[in-house]
């Protein structure tokens, strides 16, 4: 097992492809996305428009090194600023296989 950082994001579902592209550019290729994460934050309730899905959030999880985590944070901050969402960073142990 090796220590890693776990970065968790909740962002606008429509923003995810764009965000993943940005992450690719800084060399972060691996991630997991759970598509439907409803919620409430500064921008009010995010649910209820089943047709366009405009208010859907997605949950993105990335296990990475501390350096990468810092880069990710810098990359996502402007996106969060513009379109809302949250980003949490915590510690975990990665099981090598």
């Amino acid at each position, binding site marked *: 097992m090796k220590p890693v950082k776990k970065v968790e994001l909740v962002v606008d579902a429509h923003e995810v492809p764009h965000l993943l592209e940005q992450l690719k550019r800084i060399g972060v290729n691996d991630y997991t996305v759970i598509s439907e994460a409803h919620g409430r934050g500064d921008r009010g309730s995010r649910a209820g428009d*089943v*047709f*366009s899905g*405009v208010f859907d959030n997605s949950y993105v999880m990335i296990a990475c090194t501390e350096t990468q985590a810092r880069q990710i944070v810098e990359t996502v901050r402007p996106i969060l600023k513009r*379109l809302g969402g949250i980003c949490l960073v915590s510690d975990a142990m990665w099981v090598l296989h």
Partner: protein
Amino acid sequence: MDLSLVQNLIDPAILFFFFGLFAAGIRSNLDIPAPIAKFFSLYLLVAIGFKGGVALAASGLTVTAVAAIGAAMLMALLVPAYSFLILRGRTNPYDAAAIAATYGSISAVTFIAAQQFLTRNGVDFGGHMTVAMVLMESPAIIMAVLLASLVRKREQAQLSPSVGAAAVANSTSSKGISLKEVLHEAFTDGAHLLLIGSLVIGYITGDAGKEVMAPFTAEIFKGILAFFLLEMGLLVARQLRESRDLGPFLMGFALVMPMVNASVAIALAWVLGLAAGDTLLLACLAASGSYIVVPAICRYAIPEARPGVYFSMSLAFTFPFNIVIGIPLYYSVIALIWGN
């Protein structure tokens, strides 16, 4: 014709809409699974687009058709323009721009309900009205984006009159989205594109296509519409609860503006000599507000606006108003004038 209001309400699909309102009102846990609701919304677009395309292939693009389409596009420019002027002083200007786009654009389900109303009353309408509907989406959005960027520039100028150009440029990079990007977003929006695609496919395949597709796109249409309106009823009632903080002005706007827009549309149709059926559809296009395409684009093009506001107005107030009262009301006026 007096009875048209009550008759309108006795349609099973409309009754399912009321039932949805009731079920959500008493806080039932009734729920159509989201993927089903989303699929039904796509289904309705395909069915209506395809039907319009087939009808258009049969009739061709007549002069009246072109006049009706032109009237629709004019409405799509007029409605956001005067809506913005009305809203400007009374709400924050970004919300005003987004609301203007919402009402300039259209609700396909209101359009469908109007078609059902006409069919039930034996009144004809043309396939070109579906083209009109398609073409009303973009102008409204363009107007709104232009209005929003105007607001943005003015605000920027007020905040930093000395810094000037640099600040504007900076703001552009963070907030300003190019009109080109927005147009791409608007044109490639799934709902919008599917409507266009189905229209074109209906036009190409014509009657042969109609025959093989009819059991799916026409025969079971009413049943799926009923399920869809049940879901709309649930959504409207739940959204009403979220929209207590709209304030009387915006609520009033959402209920009165449809009648104003329908009146302008009817007047325009009268001048252009459109038929009664097409006129009702034009009135409903003008009177309805978007709750699918416009929120999808404004979220991105005018992120400063509060989606809860324009979404609630069009979904929780304008939509039920048109479905229940608007359609028969507009038609009774049309019948009176057209001397039907």
